[in-house]
Structures are given as structure tokens and as C-alpha cells.
């Protein structure tokens, strides 16, 4: 472990090439862009505190993603009850689905679908589907085995499939919130 106290300059120098990608990742695993920005900011602060523990600076990219993952999971745990009693649920589905006719609504639907996944599954799906990372890279970021990542992807897809299957049952008149609780 390095004894040198990392500096902000060093951190931002390492962060510069991947800043946008990491921030996008934080937004995509969160329930909103605003929450994602908070996750990202907390992650940068945590990275500043822990940068000294990163011996190999060439591994900064997966390490930084790992920090985001860690912050995200911590926040999700502490927000567990808020999730269920929140007075600000995701956008509701109209009975005819008309409110999801545009791109913004499509993004909201994706966000609601991802919200039905466990944090680890959500991270794996976002990294794989949206960021194009390989299973090996995701395993390094999530500090998990290859089999664990594969399992998260399979189970995450199963849950997404279930979410969309339930949306396709208009007779049930399900709301997004109800589907999320699935």
C-alpha cells in the first residue's frame, strides 16, 4: 500500500479520460440522473480517500467503476425502506400505454425495468448492454467470479423479461410501481 497521500490533481488526471463514461454508468444504474450524479460525486470523494490503496495506477479504470458500484450499493441499502414508501414513484403507466409514446418515456420505462433488478444485476446489465464491457471486465469491476457475473446477467435478463411480460398484460392495468414490486 502506498504511503503517499493522493492529490486531487492526480485523481482528476486519472479520471479525465473516463470521466464521462463513469458518470454515465452512475446515472444508468441509479433511478434518475440526479441520483446518479450524487452517486458519482460520492464515488469521486471516496476515490480520493482510497486512491492511496491502488498500487497499480494502470488499473484505475476498473477500480473507479468498482468505487461507483460500491457507493451505489451502499446507497441502495440505506434507501431500502425509502424505496417502498417513496412518495415519488416512477412515472405511472397509463392504461393504454400512451404516455410512453416518446423517447423520454421509453427511457423512463427502461429505468423502471432496471429498478426491478438487484443492484449487482443492474450493474452487470448496464455494463454489458450499454457500455459494451466483457464478462471478464465486469467481473473485475464487480470483484466477482465469472460465473457470478454470468448468473447476474441471466437472472437480470429474466427479470427484465418478466417486467415487460407484465407490461404486456393490459387487462391487469398494472402501474409501473406495481410491476416494480413484482
Amino acid at each position, binding site marked *: *500500500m502506498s504511503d503517499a*497521500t*493522493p*492529490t*486531487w490533481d492526480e485523481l*482528476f488526471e486519472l*479520471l*479525465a479520460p473516463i*470521466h*464521462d463514461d463513469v*458518470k*454515465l454508468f452512475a*446515472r*444508468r444504474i441509479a433511478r434518475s*440522473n440526479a441520483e*446518479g*450524479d450524487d452517486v*458519482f*460525486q460520492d464515488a*469521486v*470523494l471516496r476515490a*480520493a*480517500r*482510497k*486512491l*492511496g*490503496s491502488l498500487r497499480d495506477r494502470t488499473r484505475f479504470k476498473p477500480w473507479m467503476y468498482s468505487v461507483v458500484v*460500491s457507493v451505489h*450499493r*451502499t446507497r441502495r441499502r440505506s434507501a431500502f425502506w425509502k424505496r417502498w414508501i417513496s412518495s415519488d414513484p416512477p412515472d405511472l403507466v397509463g392504461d393504454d400505454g400512451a404516455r410512453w409514446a416518446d*423517447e*423520454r418515456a*421509453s*427511457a423512463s*420505462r*427502461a*429505468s423502471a*425495468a*432496471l429498478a426491478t433488478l438487484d443492484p*449487482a444485476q443492474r450493474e452487470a446489465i448496464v455494463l454489458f*448492454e*450499454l457500455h459494451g464491457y466483457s464478462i471478464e471486465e465486469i467481473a473485475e469491476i*464487480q*470483484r*466477482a*467470479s465469472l*460465473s*457470478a457475473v454470468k*448468473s447476474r446477467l441471466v437472472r437480470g*435478463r429474466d427479470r*427484465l*423479461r418478466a*417486467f*415487460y411480460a407484465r407490461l404486456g398484460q393490459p387487462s391487469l392495468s398494472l402501474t409501473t410501481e406495481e410491476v416494480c414490486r413484482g
Partner: protein
Amino acid sequence: MADPWTDDLAALGEDTRAQLGSLAHTRARLRMEPPMKNVFKRRPLFAIAVTALVLAVAAPVAWAIGTKIFVTFDPDKSAPEIEQDITNQLQSAGVTATVHADKSDGRLSVQIRGSGEALDHANLEVVPAGSAGVVIEKEGSAGSKQVVSRQIRLEVETAQPLEDAALAKLQAVLGTKEVTDALEGDDLDHLEEVVTDALANAGFHAVTVEATPGALTVHVTAPPAP
């Protein structure tokens, strides 16, 4: 055929790019304070990791917090002496349990196993003697000696009692090098992930894992998958 979520995820990908903010923006938002140094900064010439595994096996009832029992021991004593010390202290507190201590590779593990009335209603805390916190650094003329103590509380609350083989499997997972290495670190999220993954790989999927600076609690609610 594309998955039903493909277009929605693409839309989310675009939506999250809105007003993303630059690196300079991020920097401006953060308070420019020098990062804190690790509180538990390590500088050991040699280290002893003390792990106390408290195994409680219960009938499917809610866990109750009863009288808190403090058990202390001297990590410098031999394993049999530690076993005897802890057994005596538990008996004095009215708790009957089996104690097993093992010292190897600079690592001491203490396992306390009880069932039913023995441990499930006892809020048991096991700490090395003389410790005031989770991490103790003993300064000596020859260098630093560090004792890391983190208690593992394994709570089994299943509809049917776990078979001995399943319990042994649980203990084996918690005794792997991967887990014990994570126990000695101060990254609690990493510890939870390591333990959760290790248990999942061993077939235990119905578990919740919570790590705090002083303890790791593993709550098992179903037997392992065959």
C-alpha cells in the same frame, strides 16, 4: 429477435447524456479538501487476525436480542487455553456452547457453536482482551503488532434445521482465504460482496450479509441448493 428492452435501454443511454457536465464541472462541485488518510493505516511487521465465529442455529422464530454477553480472551494464549477461557465465561453467563479455537498461519479463529436457547437469545460479543475497539495496534520496540478483530455471526433461520453437512459447508465458506482476507480489510462493501459470492457459489442463495466495522452477520433462511 431483439429483446423487448433493447430500444428502451438505448433511449435510456441517450437520456442519461443530457447535461452530463464536464470534468471541470465535477471538480468545481467537489470540496477541494485533502483526502483523509486511512484511519486504520497499517504498518505491521506482523499481524494477527482474530476472527470469532459465532454460530447460532435456531428454530424458525424471530431473533431476539437478550442480555448482552461480553466474552474476552487473550490472543497470546494457546488455543486450548482460549477455548477453556471462553467456555468458562459462557457458562458463567448461563450459555452452553461448544468452543473451538484454532491458531495457524498467524491467524486465530474462535468458533462458538450453540443452538436453541443457547445462543439465539444471547447478544454475544467476543473481543480480544484489552481491546477497546475493532483494531488494536500494540507498539513495541521491535515494531508494530496489529490485531484485527471482526466477529462473524452466523444466524441460521430455516424451516427445517440445516443438516450437519450444510453447516460444515457454511463454516468452510467463511473460513476460506478469500473471506478471511476480506475480513481483515476495511472495505465493508467488498467484504459483503466476497461473502455473498462465496456463499452463492456454495449453493447458499437465501442469505443476507451485513458487514460493520466490528462484525459480519450472515443470516441464512434456506438450505443450500443441491
